């Protein structure tokens, strides 16, 4: 990723071309596969134990879709990945992540500076909130995505380089995911458990943190 890293060094994120987004999805898929059993174990505690397998299948399908119809723009990459996740996952994470990436793609301007990325990312997070009728604090993926989005927006305001911004966003997502442990689930299957959902990390927040970690990794 040396070439991409050099481009990212310009600080404004001018380097976020199609290859950057393809690398993000590739690395997200790799990390999801590595952590598949951990995600499944988290989901077995408060869900139906399919989150790791579903997401692994979803990102594998995304890789196949990219191979069959190579995206020519960042927008195409995001919309293709989103559509594939919606069509192929089968569980709740498909429509949620799928809508996030599709909405992010649809609201992405060109060229993709950090400011453009941050605004599109926020738009994608809003799509998850609307579709799931959920908010931060409900013990869902939003507990990782909302703080990550906030960090990106802050980085734009503070004129921080994209690489550092993505690292902060990944850290915020990871902290947000761990912060779901004491929460009581208000959305999703875990909400049926009521108080018994307390004490477990939310698998959706954990996978969102993985996807943000992939973003930081491809930018470094």
């Amino acid at each position, binding site marked *: 990723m040396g070439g991409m890293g050099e481009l990212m060094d310009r600080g404004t994120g001018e380097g976020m071309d199609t290859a950057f987004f393809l690398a993000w999805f590739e690395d997200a898929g790799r990390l999801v596969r590595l952590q598949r059993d951990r995600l499944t174990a988290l989901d077995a505690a408060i869900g139906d134990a399919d989150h790791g397998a579903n997401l692994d299948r979803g990102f594998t399908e995304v890789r196949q879709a990219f191979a069959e119809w190579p995206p020519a723009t960042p927008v195409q990459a995001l919309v293709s990945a989103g559509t594939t996740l*919606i069509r192929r996952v*089968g*569980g*709740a994470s498909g429509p949620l992540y799928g809508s996030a990436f599709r909405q992010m793609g649809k609201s992405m301007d060109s060229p993709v500076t950090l400011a453009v990325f941050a605004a599109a990312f926020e738009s994608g997070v809003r799509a998850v909130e609307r579709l799931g009728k959920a908010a931060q604090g409900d013990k869902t993926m939003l507990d990782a995505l909302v703080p990550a989005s906030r960090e990106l927006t802050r980085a734009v305001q503070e004129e921080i380089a994209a690489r550092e911004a993505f690292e902060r966003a990944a850290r915020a997502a990871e902290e947000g995911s761990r912060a779901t442990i004491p929460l009581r689930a208000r959305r*999703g299957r875990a909400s049926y458990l009521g108080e018994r959902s307390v004490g477990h990390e939310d698998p959706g927040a954990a996978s969102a943190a993985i996807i943000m970690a992939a973003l930081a990794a491809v930018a470094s």
Partner: protein
Amino acid sequence: MVGLILISHSAGLAAEVASLARCIAGDRVRVAACGGTGDGRTGTSVDLIDQAVEQVDEGDGVVLIPDLGSSVLTARLLVEPGRVVLADVPFVEGAIAAAVAAGGGAPLATVLSAAEEARTQRKL
């Protein structure tokens, strides 16, 4: 006639509720069952629902009736106001109420409200 689509994680559950709806509301009712992922897994397939919308829509509109979780999220992605609407109702009771209303020739808005009445209807 308004079309109905029953969406469940389980292929068997969707098919049986569709069958029950036909028994009660009559064979003419345009009801499609979309259960499971289409490749044998438990879950939801947006493609199956999309195809079913085309199949049951005669031009009078379609009511989507999901059970829970990803069925609801996936169904919400296919809503087209005025043509494809989502009923926030108990799966069995809502399906039967909607099928009877649709079978009687009611328009889309009436079928939807008939289904939604099932939410508050007591059994005793």
